[in-house]
């Protein structure tokens, strides 16, 4: 029964993702390897709202500057550090302005970083571009988090 409920919840989440209600930042959602960071982020508004490349790239550049990662804008996925890749994925989600952004298992995105402070500092910088951002993590990683910002737990 639990399996069926989990499956239904998963399907509902997939449907929501498909409708653009939830943007996933996940280890399983890689960047386009043959596009630069800037192009990966700009692609979303360029495609979804039919902006010209220059307009979309301006938006993407603004977000990279806000996050403090503008130096990585020409890099492609294989050349990125874990932090740069995670930021690029997050900004790709942010630029679409979805109602919810789900950061899925950040320990897998940032294996060499004490990630809760890193993520919360990043989310604070991007606060005016975010609607609602949730972090989903394993229960055993909960002690890493500040008690004021507990993650959603994968049971």
């Amino acid at each position, binding site marked *: 029964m639990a399996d069926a409920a989990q499956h239904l919840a998963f399907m509902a989440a997939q449907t929501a*993702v*498909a*409708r*653009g209600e939830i*943007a*996933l930042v996940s280890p*399983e*959602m*890689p*960047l*386009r*390897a*043959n596009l630069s960071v800037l192009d990966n982020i700009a*692609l*979303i508004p*360029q*495609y*979804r709202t*039919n*902006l*010209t*490349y220059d307009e*979309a790239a301006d938006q993407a550049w603004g977000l990279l500057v806000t996050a403090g990662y503008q130096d990585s804008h020409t890099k492609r996925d294989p050349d990125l550090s874990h932090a740069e890749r995670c930021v690029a994925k997050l900004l*790709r*989600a942010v630029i*679409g302005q979805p109602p919810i952004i789900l950061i899925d298992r950040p320990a897998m995105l940032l294996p060499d970083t004490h990630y809760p402070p890193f993520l919360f500092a990043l989310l604070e910088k991007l606060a005016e571009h975010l609607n609602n951002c949730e972090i989903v993590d394993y229960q055993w990683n909960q002690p890493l988090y500040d008690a004021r910002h507990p993650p959603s737990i994968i049971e």
Partner: protein
Amino acid sequence: MAFVTHFFIRRGAAFLTTWRIWRDTLLFAGRAVLTACAPTAYNSATRTVVMKQIYFTAWQILPGFTLFAALLSYVLIQIVVTTAAKFGLSDYALEVTMRLLVLELLPLITALFVALRSSSAINTEIALMKINGEIEALESACVDTMRLEFMPRVIGGMISVLALTAVTSVLALVLAYLAVYGWQTWSLPDFSRVMGKVFDNAVLFGILLKSLTFGLAVTVIPVAEGMATPRKLFMAPISVLRGMVRLFFALMLIEVASLAFKYI
């Protein structure tokens, strides 16, 4: 008896697998063409991908390929003209040259060249995108990969094959004129008469259709094969190998069908 049963089961499974691959390729081609016909499919992002595809498939190779096509055309024209003269058939040399080069060889060579250069790259790229999960990532970001990644490649590939065929054909016609009539212009009416005889409306429509079908094949087969790649890295070279072999057979099949339609 068991041997016979196993043989048919194995052959049947292989046949069904091949049948499914070709069916999926044809379905994909249909979807790509239908998407390409819808004006709503085009936006700034898709236009960028179409332009990139034309740039990488046609523009980048234009000087080298044109030079190669000119050299090949010149050699073949000289062979035909010399042989025709030897047998007292000089009157037919120009017509034979046009039929051989413009109607048959140049479209096929262009498609093969594009297949070697771009189709293998497209097959590898799509296979790696599939293996890495990039396609799912784009779709989860509400990006329709048919519109953004696949359809523009098909359009770009078709335009590239058509454009390269047109450029090399015009060049071959100029070389054929020079080889048969020399460096003078007063034989242009004769040349035009032969051209009119060879390139009637049906033939022009046929060559257009053949080039477009070649263009469709050199993009649809690698994309469909890339999409069918299982999510295992070691399958990438196997996917490209399969895609290229299937593409070669498809191109030959189109050529044979075109020859059979014209001459049988």
